């Protein structure tokens, strides 16, 4: 038996097919993962992602700790409610985890002008939350920074073009207006709910952190409005269509951000900020990046899947010796495009078309620039 989220009993009563995901019992689907996928693209769906780790970081050195831990620059977070996506790196520049950090508030500031009370919230992957907590605490030694794991909170993602309006309908009028006023990558404590305009599907929507005891009620009220319960299966096809990496598949502790389509999350300026992994990344940039993560689209039938061998079309006679070879890191069937898509790590020179070993057959695939599905960015920025 795996770990259970506050919504476990509800998932069972909804007929979910539960699977083990990083030690957690979570819904794969409630019926058809294709139907769930389309519900998110066309209207709204909701996901239980309470397995993800929510850590509050506070103290006089909270900001300094995060500036050292995260390759993106937490200095960009000057206004409470702002969110930032980034990676924690190890000393070799490998990705320890990807995360979102939210600037909660600075309650001490008004009193003494010092930011001794700054509070941040970090949301990390479920499979890595224990190792992340150990890593963050080890880096916090000797600093005035307290890390609190918010096991009291559930996390529900509501995603899709109608998601924000649907969430607003389950809130009190004043709270609804506050939630709809949130800009992209902004968050706010609204009543008992911490509502963030973030997500992992490529659609607009919210991620809602709320007291565990309220999770079931909110879920059922959203269901009653027609918001479809969605499992991890749909979450995976949605994120891959949007070209979003999955930690442990598309990047991990042995790959750096520049070979993982995550270079944009590395803030090398200001140069004085000595984040963990910086020296390794500077060395990588000095000697050149030899691998990259690309998007692939299969022209014919079949499904690209993680672990399949990729052969660059111009690899020539040296293909067998390991030159020109790559590997699929994530692959699936795209319900929107009705053909297979994948992310693959390949030699930096790869372009045009490649061949992929799909169950013993070499199938031709086109190199494309993710996102695979071009999503309308409706709503205010």
């Amino acid at each position: 038996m795996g770990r259970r989220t506050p919504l476990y009993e509800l998932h069972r009563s909804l007929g979910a097919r539960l699977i083990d995901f990083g030690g957690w019992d979570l819904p794969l689907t409630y019926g058809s993962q294709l139907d769930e996928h389309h519900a998110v693209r066309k209207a709204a769906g909701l996901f239980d992602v309470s397995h993800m780790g929510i850590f509050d970081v506070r103290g006089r050195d909270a900001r300094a700790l995060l500036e050292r831990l995260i390759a993106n620059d937490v200095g960009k977070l000057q206004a409470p409610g702002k969110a930032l996506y980034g990676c924690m790196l190890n000393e070799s520049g490998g990705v320890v985890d990807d995360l979102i950090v939210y600037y909660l508030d600075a309650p001490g500031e008004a009193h003494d002008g010092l930011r001794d009370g700054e509070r941040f919230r970090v949301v990390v992957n479920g499979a890595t939350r224990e190792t992340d907590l150990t890593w963050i605490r080890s880096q916090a030694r000797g600093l005035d920074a307290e890390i609190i794991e918010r096991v009291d909170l559930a996390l529900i993602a509501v995603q899709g073009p109608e998601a924000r309006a649907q969430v607003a309908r389950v809130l009190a009028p004043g709270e609804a207006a506050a939630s709809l006023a949130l800009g992209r990558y902004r968050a706010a404590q609204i009543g008992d709910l911490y509502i963030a305009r973030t997500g992992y599907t490529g659609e607009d929507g919210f991620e809602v952190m709320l007291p565990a005891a309220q999770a079931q009620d909110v879920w059922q009220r959203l269901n009653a409005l027609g918001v479809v319960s969605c499992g991890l299966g749909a979450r995976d096809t949605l994120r891959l269509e949007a070209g979003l990496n999955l930690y442990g598949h598309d990047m991990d502790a042995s790959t750096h951000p520049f070979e993982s389509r995550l270079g944009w999350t590395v803030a090398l300026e200001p140069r004085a900020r000595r984040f963990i992994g910086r020296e390794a990344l500077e060395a990588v940039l000095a000697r050149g990046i030899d691998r990259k993560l690309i998007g692939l689209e299969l022209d014919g039938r079949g499904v690209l899947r993680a672990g399949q061998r990729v052969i660059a079309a111009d690899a020539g006679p040296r293909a067998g010796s390991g030159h020109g070879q790559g590997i699929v890191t994530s692959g699936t069937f795209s319900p929107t495009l009705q053909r297979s898509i994948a992310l693959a790590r390949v030699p930096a020179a790869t372009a045009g078309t490649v061949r992929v070993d799909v169950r013993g057959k070499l199938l031709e695939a086109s190199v494309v620039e993710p996102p695979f599905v071009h999503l309308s960015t409706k709503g205010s920025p």
Partner: protein
Amino acid sequence: MSQVPSGLRYSKTHEWVRVMPDGLLEIGITDHAQRALGDLVFVETPEPGRRVSAGEPYAVVESVKAASDVYCPVAGEIAAANTELASAPERINQSPYEAGWIARIRPDDAAAVAKLLTPEQYSKLIEAEGD
């Protein structure tokens, strides 16, 4: 709970067999199997005329989650294949025992069907697998 219709025979690898009035055997995958696979997106059916032995893969079903070989429960010759599955693989999810049939075979030995699992035996098997 998965459906296990009476009147059919079953294999340990989750295929079903129906004896047709003309002596052909209609074959497909069980409700239990389609549930385990999830939404199907591609089905590769065999060419009529092809000879298959018992236990040999004769079709491939691919879901969003995984690709799986489908094994032939009885030796014989493929007499027909359900070509509609190429454009409508979801028929296997929606109707595994009727519209989702995969092939019809002309068995080498009609008596071979009697050696397959009865509905009761197959129900026990999938119950043991946690159906």
